[in-house]
C-alpha cells in the first residue's frame, strides 16, 4: 500500500514538509499542491498543514479559504475524500465552513509551543479509524489561536454525535470542553490543533503521532470514500464571494517524490 497524500501549500504554510516526511516514513507518498492549483490531481487524501497561510492577515484562515485550491478541496470533501487540517489547516477548515466552530486566541495571551497529552475520543474518522477510544497520546502544539469555541447549539451537536475526535488531558489554551480536534458528520473531514506529523520520529521527540498519520494512510489506501458511500456532508458553507484572484502569484504544482 502506498497511499498518495496531497499536502496543500499556501503562501505562509510552514509545516508541509513535516507532513511529507511523516507520510514517507510511514510508507505513503506525498506531493505538495500549490494553493493556486485548480485541481488536486490523483490524491487519496488531502492535508492542510500548519503555518500562517496568507500571513494570517485579517484572521487565521480567512483569506486561505478563498484560495483557488479550496474549491477542489471542498468538492473532494463533499465526495467523501479524506481531508485533515492540522493547526493552521484546522483554522482554514473552520473558516471554509467544512468544520464547525472557530479558533480564538489562547486564553492567557501566550503562544504555546510544547508537548501536551491528548486523548482519542472517537474512532469514526479518517484520522482515528482503528485507534481505540481512550488512547492517550503526547503530541506537540504550536499555536496562538488554538482556543476552540462554537455556538452552544453546535457544541451540543458535536457532543451528541460523538464528533469530538481529540481532547486535551490538561487544557493548554482554554478550548471549550477541552476540545483539541473535531470531525464532520461523515468522519472524512478532521481538524486538530496538535501536530501528529511532528511526532513520527524518535529523533524529534516522540512517535505518538504515527498512529494518527498511519490511520490516515490506511483510510486513503483503503478507499474511505467508497466505504462511506456518498456520505459527503453539506455543512452549509458560508456565502462565497468571487474567488481570490491569484494574479501575480506563481501557481505551480511543486512535487516531491
Amino acid at each position: 500500500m502506498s497511499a498518495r497524500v496531497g499536502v496543500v501549500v499556501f503562501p505562509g504554510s510552514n509545516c508541509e514538509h513535516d507532513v511529507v516526511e511523516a507520510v514517507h516514513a510511514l510508507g505513503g507518498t506525498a506531493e505538495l499542491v500549490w494553493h493556486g492549483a485548480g485541481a488536486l490531481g490523483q490524491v487519496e487524501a488531502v492535508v492542510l498543514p500548519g503555518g500562517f497561510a496568507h500571513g494570517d492577515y485579517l484572521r487565521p484562515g480567512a483569506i486561505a479559504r478563498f484560495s483557488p485550491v479550496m474549491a477542489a478541496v471542498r468538492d473532494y470533501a463533499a465526495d467523501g475524500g479524506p481531508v485533515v487540517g492540522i493547526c493552521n489547516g484546522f483554522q482554514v477548515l473552520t473558516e471554509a465552513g467544512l468544520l464547525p466552530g472557530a479558533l480564538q486566541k489562547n486564553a492567557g495571551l501566550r503562544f504555546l509551543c510544547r508537548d501536551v497529552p491528548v486523548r482519542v475520543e472517537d474512532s469514526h474518522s479518517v484520522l482515528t479509524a482503528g485507534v481505540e477510544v481512550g488512547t492517550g497520546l503526547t503530541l506537540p502544539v504550536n499555536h496562538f489561536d488554538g482556543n476552540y469555541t462554537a455556538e452552544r447549539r453546535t457544541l451540543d451537536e458535536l457532543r451528541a454525535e460523538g464528533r469530538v475526535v481529540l481532547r486535551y488531558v490538561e487544557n493548554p489554551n482554554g478550548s471549550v470542553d477541552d476540545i483539541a480536534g473535531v470531525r464532520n458528520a461523515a468522519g472524512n473531514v478532521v481538524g486538530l490543533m496538535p501536530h501528529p506529523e511532528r511526532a513520527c520520529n524518535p529523533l524529534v521527540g516522540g512517535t505518538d503521532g504515527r498512529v494518527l498519520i498511519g490511520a490516515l494512510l490506511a483510510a486513503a489506501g483503503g478507499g474511505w470514500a467508497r466505504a462511506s458511500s456518498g456520505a459527503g456532508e453539506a455543512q452549509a458553507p458560508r456565502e462565497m464571494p468571487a474567488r481570490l484572484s491569484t494574479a501575480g502569484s506563481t501557481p505551480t504544482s511543486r512535487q516531491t517524490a
Partner: protein
Amino acid sequence: MRFSALVEVRTRAGIADPEGATIEAALPALGFSDVANVHVGKAIRLEVEADSAEAARARLDELCRTFLTNPVLEDAELTLVGGQ
C-alpha cells in the same frame, strides 16, 4: 458615487480579548486606574462605488458577513463617512 466607510471589527461578548485585557492590566501602573473596559479590535477603512448610501451599506454588510468578520467570534460596526 464613491463612499468612504469605516468598518470596526470587535470580538463578540464572551470571546477572549487578551490584548485588551493586557492593556487594561497595565493601566494602574501607568496611573490610569480610572480607565476600564478596554477592548481591542480592528479598524478597516475602505471605499465602495454605489448608487446610493443604502446600496453602499448593503454591499458592505455583505462584505462584513462573508469575509471581514467570522460571525462565531466577531461583530462589525459599519460607518459610512460620506459619498462624492
